[in-house]
């Protein structure tokens, strides 16, 4: 038996080492270039025959290269144009009903660091041809007395060096708290309220640069993560030493533009403008194109299957990580001595926390447990039979889930793209186990096991949420064999559990009549 276990562990180890050494790819930790597929989607509601929608197509430059399928550009209802040296796309057409416009391209991006010359002094930069980027506007009030006064104060601190001034301005805007909804978005309001939207912050930084005599402009785009967004992101650029240097006060990038930033437009624009339309819903669906860096000797390449859309990412990840999670539970129960609700439940709860977010999931879960605890008292007093009682509990849990989902979406605590079906099923499943425990033992026992389940769940969550581990298992699925081998070894281990040492610590065999 032991031999089989060792073989199961050694085979994948050899494969991983073989594949690792046979592919001399760059260290995956240092990603310099990323490929993403971006899809714009505009849902037009209440169109009356004619619509006109404008949006931006990113520029090709040294740090981002855009690849659009030629057929997409030849579409009859779309035209291309320029606006403020950005690439504008215009869709015009007529429709009787609600309709959807979508547009897709793939993009490769690269990280860029800008070097600001430490010795560069104010007034030394050539600014004459950038005159338009020094002017004040309705949203970037560079010559408003309040903004001027602040700039003057900052100029006193760093009188000559552009680099120092840029740092001071950046730090000032960076520490302004960001508020997502309903807050002012222009520079002056942001300056006065000391809290504003992401766009407001980039406008304020632009205004401050301009009032200090440095040309500056807003920039908008998408921060590339695997998700579906409803809005775009904002940062800005300042013209320093003959080049446009990027600053992102929202995500703390000073004089650098990470590979995750896809620039869609420069200047003070809206990503989408429309006319003759009731309303539109816009979505930006971003998908990372992954590549398997270790293709040689791969028995099957899961990355490729995911990229080809032959396997969905999420269920594959759950399947690959389920054994690891269950193994963590096995260690917690057999070696440490934790008691949990089932072997798989802590792993499944951990997965649902991955979907919902840790804090949101914990709150959601704890409220369910609290509800069942409170309800168990009257139900027990009334002597309700077991199965109807569980149905009754589940009904309340369902009602709670419905209102919780509503609250999640209104407050934005959980990303709208998160699929909540899986978490809800798992968490209601738990509620049955919990109710049963309350009934068969006591509320105290049930809560005690709940506490231990949470501890084990958190350790699962901590390990399973690590990107490194997720990618490792997708890249090297053969590791699953090793988990089987390790489980065989664990199944043979008969030592005392950690908790048993304290439990049995009072037994002192020497006083026993048996020697």
């Amino acid at each position, binding site marked *: 038996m032991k031999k089989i276990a060792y073989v199961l562990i050694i085979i994948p180890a050899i494969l991983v080492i073989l594949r690792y050494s046979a592919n001399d790819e760059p260290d995956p930790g240092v990603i310099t270039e990323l490929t993403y597929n971006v899809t714009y989607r505009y849902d037009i509601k209440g169109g009356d025959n004619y619509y006109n929608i404008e949006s931006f197509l990113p520029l090709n430059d040294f740090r981002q290269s855009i690849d659009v399928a030629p057929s997409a550009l030849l579409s009859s209802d779309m035209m291309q144009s320029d606006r403020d040296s950005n690439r504008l796309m215009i869709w015009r057409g007529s429709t009787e009903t609600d309709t959807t416009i979508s547009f897709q391209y793939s993009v490769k991006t690269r990280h860029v660091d800008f070097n600001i010359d430490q010795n560069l002094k104010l007034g030394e930069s050539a600014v004459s041809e950038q005159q338009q980027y020094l002017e004040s506007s309705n949203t970037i009030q560079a010559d408003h007395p309040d903004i001027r006064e602040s700039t003057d104060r900052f100029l006193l601190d760093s009188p000559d060096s552009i680099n120092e001034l840029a740092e001071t301005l950046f730090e000032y805007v960076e520490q302004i708290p960001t508020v997502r909804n309903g807050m002012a978005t222009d520079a002056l309001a942001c300056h006065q309220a000391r809290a504003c939207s992401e766009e407001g912050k980039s406008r304020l930084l632009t205004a401050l640069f301009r009032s200090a005599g440095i040309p500056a402009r807003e920039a908008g785009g998408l921060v590339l993560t695997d998700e579906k967004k409803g809005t775009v992101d904002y940062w800005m650029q300042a013209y320093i030493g003959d080049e446009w240097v990027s600053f992102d006060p929202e995500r703390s990038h000073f004089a650098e533009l990470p590979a995750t930033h896809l620039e869609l437009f420069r200047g003070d624009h809206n990503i989408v403008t429309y006319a003759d339309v009731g309303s539109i819903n816009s979505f930006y669906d971003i998908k990372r194109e992954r590549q398997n860096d270790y293709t040689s000797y791969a028995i099957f390449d899961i990355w490729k299957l995911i990229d080809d859309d032959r396997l969905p990412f999420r269920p594959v990840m759950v399947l690959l990580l389920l054994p690891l999670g269950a193994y963590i539970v096995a260690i917690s129960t057999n070696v440490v001595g934790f008691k949990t609700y089932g072997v798989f439940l802590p792993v499944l709860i951990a997965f649902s926390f991955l979907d919902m977010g840790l804090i949101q999931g914990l709150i959601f879960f704890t409220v369910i447990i609290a509800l069942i605890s409170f309800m168990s008292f009257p139900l027990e007093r009334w002597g309700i039979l077991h199965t109807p009682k569980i149905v009754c509990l589940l009904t309340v849990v369902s009602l709670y889930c419905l209102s919780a989902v509503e609250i999640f979406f209104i407050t934005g605590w959980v990303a709208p793209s998160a699929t909540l079906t899986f978490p809800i099923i798992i968490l209601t499943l738990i509620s049955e186990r919990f109710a049963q425990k309350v009934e068969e033992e006591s509320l105290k026992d049930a809560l005690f096991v709940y506490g231990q389940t949470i501890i084990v769940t958190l350790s699962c969550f901590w390990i399973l949420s690590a990107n490194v581990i997720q990618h490792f298992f997708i890249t090297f699925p053969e590791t699953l064999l090793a988990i089987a081998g390790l489980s065989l070894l664990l199944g043979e281990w*008969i030592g*005392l*559990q950690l908790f*048993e*040492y304290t439990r*049995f610590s009072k037994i*002192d*065999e020497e006083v026993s009549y048996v020697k």
Partner: protein
Amino acid sequence: MLNNLVNRFRSRYKGVMGINERNRKLIYLFNERSDYILADDKLETKKVLEKNGLNCPETYAAIGRVGDIKRIWEQKRDVENLVIKPASGRGGNGILLIRRRDGEWYQGEKPVSETQIFTHIANIIFGMFSGGDDDRAILEELIVPHPELTAFYSGGIPDIRLITLADKPVMGMLRLPTRESNGKANLHQGGVGVGIDINSGTLTYAYNGKSYIETHPDSNIKIPGKIIPQWKEVMDLAGEVSKAFPLKYLGIDIVIDKNKGPLVLEINVRPGLSIQMANKAGLMSMIHATRTQV
């Protein structure tokens, strides 16, 4: 120095059995999975016991259908006191002890209506105490425990847990109910576990789940040193029971009835490990000790 510490630590826990070792070395090795039913279903247990002429409380009826509750209950009208328990219950849950006084039923001092009794039986059948699976309710004789054992505390039924390995008792524990445990004898519900020198039936150490005590918390009667009545019969019964079952590692629960003497209450294929606390001895060392005696 560190080595010394590790060795002392190891030897201290050497004979103590943990749950992993118990499962692999005793349960999996001595008990066939397919025989578990003989212990897990109390009606099956009773069948084997009765077939071998081994004493156990008399069964009045078994009810497996909700529709039968009323009819069977009517047939047993003349019974004065009884125990209602699930055939596949776990951890002593779902056991109802009732007595009749002046035509009314009482659970201890609390009056119980027939409707409440019927609901309890229905709950048993619906699987409330057997993890949701359908179950049967057993109606059986309520035993009257031996006065020497109820002297510690009169509010419940004290029982003796004997661990047998290959037809030989290796370790024993007397479980005493307390007011805190609500008349139940389970250690984790507040009962007191008392170690037994199985050669003589002498009580050794009393453990209340947290610490060792000298006297019963309710009556203040000293526990260690007392001798269990009819000990030889208890040991013989345990040996016989062990022979009657194909399960070779067992926890046998025995009560001593005032009139009938030792009776088998139930048997358990997964006996708990707290018995080691009550005896201040590891199960493994006790097994070795019994083996060398033979």
